[in-house]
C-alpha cells in the first residue's frame, strides 16, 4: 500500500529527485519520491554524466565546484560506489576569439580556487594521445584535472538506497496526475495509485516539468529538446579526460570499461517529445570523432539513443520557491543537470528545511524570466 501523507513529495526519480530525497531524509524529513517509470528512467539514465567546473559565469563555476567537492566523497558517504573518476575536462580552443574567452574564463575560475590551465597542441596529445589537434582545428585547450565523470545509474541508485535507509519511500511506476492547491497552498498530489497529502511538492520531473508545473497552475518556459548520444564497443583504456568543443558541440570520453561515449548536436535536432534516433546524428558524430581521433574510425558503434534536455531560455536551471506556497522547482537543467545535482540537492534541502543556504539561489528562481535574459556561453551537446 502506498503511504498517503508525507512532509515532502518529490516528483521524478532522476538524479535530482534521488539526491534531494537523500538530503531531505538526512534532515529528518518524511519524503516520498514518485516516478511514473523507474529510477534514472529520464535524462539521468541517458546522459554523458560528465562533471565540469569550467563555466563562464562565476555562479555556475562555484555551483559545480561545490558539487565536485561532494562527489569526491560521495561513494563513502552513500556507502555505494558511484564510479566517480577525475580525468579532467579538455575544452578545445579553436581560434584567437576562443583564446580570449578562455583566458577570461581561466582567470575567473582560478579566482575561485580551481586548478585550470591553458595547454598547447602538444600537451593535448599528452593528455589524450589519440587526439589529432589538426583534425580538431584546435590551437590549444583549457584543462581542469579535477573535472570528471560518474556513473549516472550508480549515482542515482546510490542516493536512492541511502535515502531509503534514512526512511524515504520510492514509488515506481506511479504517475502524478494532479496537484491539489487550495488558497495558494499545496494540499496533495494525486497519482494513478492514490492521493498523498503533503505541504511541499518538488517538481523534479525533468523534461516533463512543464506539464507538472501546470498541474499547480504554474507556467514554465521550459522546452524538451531531443538529444542523441552513442557508445562504442570497449577498447583498452587510453584516456581519462572528457574532450569537448563549444564550436563543434561535440563531447566524448572513455568509460571505465573502455567504451567511448559521446554526443553532438544532431542535424535534425527537434523540440518536442520525439524519441527516435537519427542516422544523420550517427554520421555526424562518426565523422567528427574521426576528425578528433582518427584511430577511432576502426571501431564499432554499439548503440545510439536519445534523451531530452529540459531547456530554459537562458540554459540555467529553475530552482526554488514559486508563487504557490510549498511548490518547489528543481528543473530546467538543460545539458548539465547531473554535474550540479549534489549541490542543488543540498541547497534545496536547506531551503525546504528553513536553514541558511550555503549559496544564494535567488538568481535561479523562476521570477528571473520577468526580466532580461543572460545566456551561459559554455554549453555543449
Amino acid at each position, binding site marked *: 500500500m502506498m503511504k498517503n501523507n508525507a512532509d515532502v513529495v518529490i516528483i521524478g526519480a532522476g538524479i535530482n529527485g534521488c539526491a534531494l530525497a537523500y538530503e531531505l531524509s538526512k534532515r529528518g524529513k518524511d519524503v516520498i519520491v514518485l516516478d511514473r517509470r523507474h529510477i534514472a528512467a529520464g535524462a539521468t539514465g541517458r546522459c554523458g554524466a560528465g562533471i565540469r567546473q569550467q563555466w563562464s559565469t562565476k555562479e555556475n563555476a562555484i555551483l559545480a565546484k561545490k558539487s565536485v567537492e561532494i562527489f569526491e566523497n560521495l561513494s563513502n558517504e552513500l556507502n555505494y560506489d558511484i564510479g566517480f573518476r577525475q580525468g579532467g575536462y579538455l575544452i578545445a580552443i579553436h581560434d584567437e576569439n576562443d583564446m580570449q574567452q578562455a583566458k577570461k574564463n581561466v582567470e575567473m575560475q582560478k579566482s575561485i580556487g580551481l586548478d585550470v590551465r591553458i595547454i598547447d597542441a602538444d600537451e593535448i596529445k599528452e593528455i589524450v594521445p589519440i587526439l589529432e589537434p589538426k583534425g580538431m582545428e584546435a590551437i590549444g585547450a583549457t584543462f581542469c584535472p579535477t573535472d570528471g565523470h560518474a556513473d549516472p545509474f550508480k549515482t542515482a541508485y546510490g542516493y536512492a538506497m541511502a535515502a531509503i535507509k534514512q526512511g524515504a519511500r520510492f514509488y515506481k511506476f506511479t504517475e502524478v496526475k494532479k496537484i491539489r492547491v487550495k488558497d495558494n497552498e499545496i494540499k496533495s498530489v494525486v497519482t494513478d495509485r492514490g492521493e498523498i497529502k503533503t505541504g511541499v511538492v518538488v517538481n523534479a520531473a525533468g523534461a516533463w516539468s512543464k506539464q507538472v508545473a501546470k498541474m499547480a497552475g504554474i507556467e514554465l518556459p521550459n522546452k524538451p529538446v531531443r538529444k542523441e548520444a552513442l557508445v562504442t*564497443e570497449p*577498447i583498452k583504456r587510453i584516456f581519462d579526460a572528457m574532450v569537448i568543443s563549444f564550436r563543434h558541440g561535440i563531447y566524448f570520453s572513455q568509460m571505465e570499461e573502455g567504451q567511448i561515449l559521446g554526443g553532438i548536436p544532431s542535424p535534425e535536432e527537434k523540440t518536442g517529445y520525439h524519441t527516435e534516433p537519427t*542516422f544523420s546524428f550517427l554520421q555526424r558524430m562518426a565523422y567528427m570523432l574521426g576528425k578528433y581521433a*582518427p584511430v577511432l*574510425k576502426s571501431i564499432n558503434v554499439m548503440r545510439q539513443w536519445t534523451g531530452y534536455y529540459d531547456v530554459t531560455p537562458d540554459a540555467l536551471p529553475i530552482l526554488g520557491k514559486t508563487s504557490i506556497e510549498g511548490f518547489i522547482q528543481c528543473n530546467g537543467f538543460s545539458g548539465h543537470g547531473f554535474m550540479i545535482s549534489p549541490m542543488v540537492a543540498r541547497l534545496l534541502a536547506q531551503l525546504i528545511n528553513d536553514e541558511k543556504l550555503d549559496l544564494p539561489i535567488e538568481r535561479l528562481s523562476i521570477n528571473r524570466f520577468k526580466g532580461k535574459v543572460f545566456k551561459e556561453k559554455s554549453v555543449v551537446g
Partner: protein
Amino acid sequence: MRIEEHPILKFERERKINFYFNGIKMEAYEGETIASALHANGIKVLSHSRKGRARGFFCGIGKCSSCLMTVNGTPNVRTCITMVKDGMIVEGDKYDLPESFPYRKPIKEKIDVSMAIVGAGPAGLAAAIESAENGIDAILIDENPRLGGQLIKQTHKFFGSSREGAGKRGIEIAKELEEEATKKAKILLNTSVIGYYDKGYHFLVAANQMDGILYEIKAKKIIFSTGAQENMLVFEGNDLPGVYGAGGVQTLTNVYGVKPGNSGVIIGAGNVGLILSYQLLQAGVDVKAIVEAMPKIGGYFVHAAKVRRNGVPIYTRHTIKEAYGKDRVEGAKIVALDEKWNTIEGSEKDIKCDFIAVSVGLTPSTRLVQQTGAKIKFISAAGGWVALHNEYMETTKDGIYVAGDASNIEEASTAIIEGKIASLHASNSLKKVHGYDKKMKEYMKRLEELRSGIFGERAKFAKNKIYEEYYEIRENRRY
C-alpha cells in the same frame, strides 16, 4: 577435432591456408570461420575477461559477445561469423587500438527497392521467392556468409506435410530454397542490417564489414525475418569455454565439420536438445546425458526414442548445478529436483565431459523491428518480446512485417508459410497480385493445418494473443 567421416554430410573443404593465433602458425581451410578454425586446432579459450576469466564462444551466430578477438589489428571482431583468411593475425586478450589502423573508407551504396527482407532463413527465403513470383523487386539481406539461417545446420529429416518438404533433411530444404531464391532475388550476404530510421519512408542501414560497404536502403515494405537467439541458463561456471548454445554446437559440427569436444552433456530435452544429441552421435561424439528440469521430455517422443536407443540417458526432473574445470569444461554436476523445483540433497551426479550444450529455448530477435516503432510486447508463449502483428504478419507500423521465429518461436515449416504470407500481402498492397485471394486462402489453410495438433497449441495460443493485442492497438490508432 575435425570430423573426417560423417553418415550424412560431406565436408568439402576448400583450399588449405595458414593463420596465426597469438603468434602461433595454424592451419585452416578457406570458407570456415575463425572460431571454427581455432576449435579445429584444439583452441577453445579465445580470450579472457577483464577479470581474468577464460572466454570461449557461446552462440556461434554472432549474437552474443563471447567470441570477440582482435583480427589483423581490428579489435572486437566476432570470430564466430568472420571467415578466416590466409595470413590472418588473430589475437586474444588484446584490446589496443592498432598503431596503424586498418581503416578503409567504406564504399557507400544507395538502394531503392520495393521490398527489403532482413534475414535469409526459411522465412526470408520464402518471402523473397514469393515476391519474385508476384513481380515485386526485393532485396534479401543476411549477415551470415550463407543463405538458409538455422536450416543449414539441420541434418535431420523434417516433419510436416510432404508439401513443405517433410521427410527431407533441413539442409536439403535449405538448398532448394537457396537455389530458387538465388535465381529470383537480389541477395546481399555478409551484410548486417544495423539500424532502421524513419525518414518519412522506411530506411535501413546495412554494413558489409568484410568488403567495407555501407548500404543505405530505402524500401516501401520491410519484412523482418531475423530469427531467434539462444537463451542462457544460470549455473555456476556457465561462462567456462566449452559451455555452448545448442545452435553454436550445430554450426560447428554440421556446417564446419568440427567437433565441439569428445563427450558432452546436453541441457534441455526439447526438440532442439534431442536433435542436437542425435546429430552429435552422428558426428562421433559421446553424448553422456540429456538433462531436463521438467517432469517429462519436452520434445517429440520419436526424437527422444532415437537417442535413447543409442544408449543416451535422459534425466528428467534434473538440472545442472555446476560446470567445472580449469579454463575449460572438465565436467558437469547435475542434481535431481523435487516437485517444488528444489534440489534434492545427496542426488548429485558428477559427469565427466569436455563440453556442455545449453538448449533451453530461444528468444525472438526483435531488436531491429523494435526500432521501427512497431509495438513490442512480452508474450511468454511466443518466447519473449515480439512485435504485435495481424494474420498477414503486418505489425502496428504500416509496411513493416515480421515472419518466422522472429515473430514466435516455431518451426521451419511454419516460418516458410509465414514468409510467403507476409510477402504476398506486402506485394499485393504495392501492386494487385493476380489470384491474391485464392493464394492467400491456401497459405492460411496450410498454416492452420500445421498448427492443429497438440504440439501446435502453444503456437496457436501465442498467435491469437498477438493478433488480439494488435487489433486493440490498430483500432485505437486508426479510428
